[in-house]
């Protein structure tokens, strides 16, 4: 059997687990929606220094934030499985070790894209207008970014001992990266030094590209650079995640 078939087996198991925990699912979905509903209306009258409506700026930002935060926290679930011995039990089977990572990551991508669709629908209700193709491309960006962060998050979870250690690292890394990417407010508003610093953060390019495709601009440099940076990041994170995942600790 191929890696794909192995990944499918692990994916099925993980997806059923996710669908079973209705409480987690409900509250996990609720948070970004609340964010959009309670923060979005504050921006409608402001001049954000960008073209399009404030929703065309904010919705892409919240989408990338969802992939960033949602993706980077998935390792906590793996830590629980590790502590319960579930992971070791699965590792002593002929299923490919890489599939144990990829199956989980695929589940996370599916879950985060489903959440993103809800988020876009809520945005539409509030007044977001964006071309369908642009929205679909935006979701594709979210999917690739979610895969990258999820794989990296699992790699981290395999190399720390406790959930609090994991959360400390994920928080410390996630928070400045999120603020520096201009997810909530565009970097067009930032002073020079901050805008400059944000150029070093890959998510900045992803969100800029998603904002462009939400405006219906597909063939420009911002989109091309965003796609290249996001794909490169995904390749790096998947390789790094796989390496860290395969490293065994006592």
């Amino acid at each position, binding site marked *: 059997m191929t890696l794909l078939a192995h990944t499918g087996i692990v994916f099925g198991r993980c997806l059923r687990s996710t669908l079973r*925990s209705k409480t987690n699912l409900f509250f996990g979905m609720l948070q970004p929606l609340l964010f959009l509903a309670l923060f979005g209306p504050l921006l409608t009258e402001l001049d954000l220094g960008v073209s399009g409506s404030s929703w065309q700026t904010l919705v892409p930002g919240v989408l990338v934030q969802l992939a960033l935060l949602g993706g980077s926290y998935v390792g906590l679930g793996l830590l629980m499985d590790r502590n*319960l011995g579930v992971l070791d039990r*699965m590792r*002593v089977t*002929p299923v490919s070790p890489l599939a144990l990572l990829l199956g989980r990551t695929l589940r996370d991508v599916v879950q985060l894209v489903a959440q993103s669709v809800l988020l876009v629908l809520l945005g539409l209700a509030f007044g977001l207008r964006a071309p369908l193709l642009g929205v679909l491309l935006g979701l594709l960006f979210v999917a690739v970014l979610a895969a990258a962060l999820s794989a990296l998050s699992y790699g981290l979870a395999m190399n720390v001992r406790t959930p609090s250690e994991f959360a400390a690292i994920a928080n410390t890394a996630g928070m400045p990266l999120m603020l520096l990417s201009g997810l909530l407010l565009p970097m067009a508003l930032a002073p020079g030094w901050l805008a400059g610093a944000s150029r070093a953060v890959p998510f900045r390019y992803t969100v800029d590209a998603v904002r462009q495709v939400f405006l219906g601009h597909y063939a420009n440099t911002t989109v091309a650079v965003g796609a290249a940076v996001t794909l490169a990041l995904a390749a790096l994170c998947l390789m790094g995640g796989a390496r860290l995942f395969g490293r065994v600790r006592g």
Partner: protein
Amino acid sequence: MSSSVIRVRGLTRTFSLGSGPVHAVRGIDLTVGRGEILGFLGPNGAGKTTTLRMLTTLLPPSGGEAEIAGRDLLRDPAGVRRRIGYVAQSGGLDPGCSVREELVTQGRLHLMTKGAAAGRAEELAGGLGLSGLMDRPTAALSGGQRRRVEIALGLVNRPEVLFLDEPTTGLDPGSRAELWDLVRRVRAEHGTTVFLTTHYLDEADALADRIVVVDAGRIVAEGASAELKSRYAGDPAASLQDAFLAITGRGTAEQPLAI
């Protein structure tokens, strides 16, 4: 076919901690015959679990070699995994999953088709008295029931060797006795070799054909229970505890308790 199913030579494992290297396993040589129940006995921290994790491919050894079920541990870990079952001390059940889902998933992870995995799950449930529990979440099982499910997971692939890490820790006396019966039955009915770690002397005494005593990462004694008793406690009718204390030199209060 050779009559030994586990052959271990010079197995070592060193962990590097901030304070320096820790030699958890310092050179284990061991042969286990087909169909044997081996009790790997030792105090906490003796290196039992580390050895088990190496033999089940979960932890790469720092040195040494092993052949398990005819496969080389280092060169063909996937081949080893196909032929063994492993039940960790923590068990490895997802509390939200039903018994059926756990058993079927394990079959799928052993690359069975959906139909074969479902069939195998029913078969094991019937044999292990789990049929009435198939749709319960594992969190709703008693300790003894949970252990039986965990053993069933370890048997899904009809392993040649079943590794059990402290299988009765935390169980009540009735469930322990049931589990011992189950282990004996697995061996009797399928000729499965069982490698179990324990720090319970009565468990090793009751269950194991042969006991290997480990302490500080080394094998310090081995033999059938009666042999160990007469060799180390001077009397085959002595308790295994006397022999164990003579072997490991601990258990007696070496220093007064500072309370």
